């Protein structure tokens, strides 16, 4: 009678995940079996097919109706928000992969020591690490899982599945390899460190609740209320792990270094995909599991949010490297998003906030990828011309590119008629409705400060004379050009007629997270 009955796995709902991971494994097999000269031409289609197919599957799942109970024995919640986030991640992933598909960015042979004959040979041989594709796929799959994990264990595993490949990818930059490797090692050590915190927090929470399923924790909370030390410390440590991933202050230190050092396409992937996934996880943990604890964590979150917004905005002002500056800007944006996370309340209020956050993630993610795509195109002898001073007068040398970049910057600054404006509006509106007016005021003030450094770049590009030995604008590969085009188009469309996406976000948010 008490034989072990097999678990029920809703393959249908999980198909997008499975497809991405499947594609990743296929990629690994290709690396193992296919001859070197074939690999790239095989990897690329596989990857794209995997991602696009997964996106299609997401759509089909949505068509069949958003599930109302967690899949895989309650381990994975394929609910409205999850599906939406999956869709977003997949879109961003496709775009980023188009960027990644640019040999110029990645090292010929990671094993070869920089500046040694073997590196020359590797370059001469035109070698390339096609492993980046499966690695990226694993990371993407990890992101999707991270955002949809319905118990802490899965979330932890997903966190690692997402992070480990990124650690590696960070180290694969073709030029400035020292920086790249440094970024990689820093990211790895700090990431591991923070995930240890996450894990310990998980342990403590488990100790309190006796389960790691989010629903279970929430129930346990309902029973006890938030007086328990174990629980509070555990919640704090969980928070540390997650806040580290979204780069909230005071856990933001890694972001500028890693963003600057990593190959720009990977930075794009991290800045967009990881952020989206991480916010998915944050929302699940704090709304679903710790929802009943909100009276305790909201004040702390206030502090974190304010600190993050201000630190991001203020520190960015004096940055001299474009990628670093974008990193700080992404910190500030994480802060803006946190104001949405805080604005919880009644069902309707939560739906409103969720909708705002989801839209913001779409808008910000796409613009970010676009911005980094532009960065890859501005090059000089030593590779990308990262230093801002090299960007002086770009507006004269290639008005179109500079114009697009300026447009992205304005979107970051949240100027009306760009996607960024509606993103900010949605989140802030939710926050105000949730009664977080002071937070919003801090938000607008810091975005005014932030505007300063976006504007500074525009001034450099358009209002100052070009340097005689200014950077050259690389003729973009089809992929890169496509990315910029798509991002720009999306930024415009979302800036002028955001309604459809808003509606999607609304539907996704309406169901909220299932337990």
């Amino acid at each position: 009678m008490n034989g072990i009955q097999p678990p029920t796995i809703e393959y249908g709902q999980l198909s997008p995940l499975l497809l991405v991971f499947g594609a990743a494994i296929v990629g690994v097999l290709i690396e193992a079996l296919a001859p070197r000269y074939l690999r790239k031409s095989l990897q690329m289609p596989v990857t794209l097919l995997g991602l696009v197919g997964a996106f299609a599957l997401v759509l089909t799942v949505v068509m069949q109706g958003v599930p109302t109970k967690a899949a895989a024995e309650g381990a994975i919640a394929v609910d409205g928000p999850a599906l939406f986030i999956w869709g977003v991640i997949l879109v961003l992933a496709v775009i980023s992969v188009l960027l990644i598909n640019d040999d110029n960015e990645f090292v010929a042979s990671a094993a070869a020591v920089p500046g040694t004959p073997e590196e020359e040979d590797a370059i001469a041989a035109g070698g390339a690490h096609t492993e980046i594709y499966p690695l990226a796929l694993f990371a993407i799959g990890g992101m999707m899982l991270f955002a949809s994990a319905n118990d802490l264990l899965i979330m932890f595993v997903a966190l690692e599945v997402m992070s480990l490949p990124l650690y590696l990818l960070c180290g694969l930059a073709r030029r400035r390899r020292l920086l790249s490797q440094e970024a990689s090692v820093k990211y790895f050590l700090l990431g591991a460190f923070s995930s240890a915190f996450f894990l310990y927090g998980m342990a403590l929470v488990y100790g309190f609740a006796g389960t790691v399923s989010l629903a279970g924790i929430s129930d346990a909370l309902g029973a006890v209320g938030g007086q328990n030390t174990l629980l509070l410390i555990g919640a704090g440590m969980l928070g540390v792990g997650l806040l580290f991933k979204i780069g909230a202050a005071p856990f933001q230190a890694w972001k500028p270094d890693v963003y600057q050092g990593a190959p720009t396409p990977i930075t794009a992937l991290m800045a967009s995909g990881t952020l989206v996934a991480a916010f998915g996880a944050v929302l699940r943990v704090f709304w679903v599991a710790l929802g009943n604890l909100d009276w305790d964590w909201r004040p702390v979150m206030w502090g974190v949010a304010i600190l993050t917004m201000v630190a991001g905005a203020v520190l960015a002002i004096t940055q001299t490297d474009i990628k670093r500056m974008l990193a700080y800007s992404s910190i500030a944006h994480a802060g803006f998003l946190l104001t949405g996370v805080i604005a919880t309340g009644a069902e309707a209020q939560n739906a409103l906030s969720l909708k705002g956050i989801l839209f913001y993630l779409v808008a910000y993610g796409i613009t970010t990828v676009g911005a980094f795509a532009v960065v890859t195109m501005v090059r000089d002898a030593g590779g990308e011309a990262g230093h801002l001073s090299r960007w002086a007068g770009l507006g004269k040398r290639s008005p179109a590119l500079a114009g697009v970049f300026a447009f992205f910057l304005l979107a970051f600054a949240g100027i009306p008629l760009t996607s960024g404006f509606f993103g900010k509006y949605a989140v802030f509106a939710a926050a105000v409705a949730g009664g977080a007016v002071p937070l919003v005021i801090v938000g607008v003030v810091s975005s005014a400060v932030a505007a300063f450094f976006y504007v500074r770049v525009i001034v450099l590009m358009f209002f100052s004379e070009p340097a005689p030995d200014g950077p050259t604008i690389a003729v973009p590969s089809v992929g890169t050009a496509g990315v910029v085009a798509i991002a720009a188009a999306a930024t415009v469309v979302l800036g002028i007629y955001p309604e459809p996406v808003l509606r999607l976000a609304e539907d996704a948010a309406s169901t909220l997270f299932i337990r």
Partner: protein
Amino acid sequence: MTTHYLVLSALLFAIGAVGVLVRRNAIVIFMCVELMLNACNLAFVTFARQHGNLDGQLIAFFVMVVAAAEVVVGLAIIVTIFRTRRSASVDDANLLKY
């Protein structure tokens, strides 16, 4: 009774954390992280015992696997940077700053 184990795990975690802060060698730092993970494992197992359900022990296994994967990636990264810089000290790697 089980609290001793918890205290121990807490101590281990703290030792690991401090180790990360005070040691320079990347390998050692990494091992300190591993130590922290194991501290977590201990805690999980203890709690499993407390609650009398198996989840904790099961999680511990997962963690070990993850840790193993982490080792692979970590060593790969550290070795590369060691080969480049001929040093495994994390303090040498600070080109990226400010």
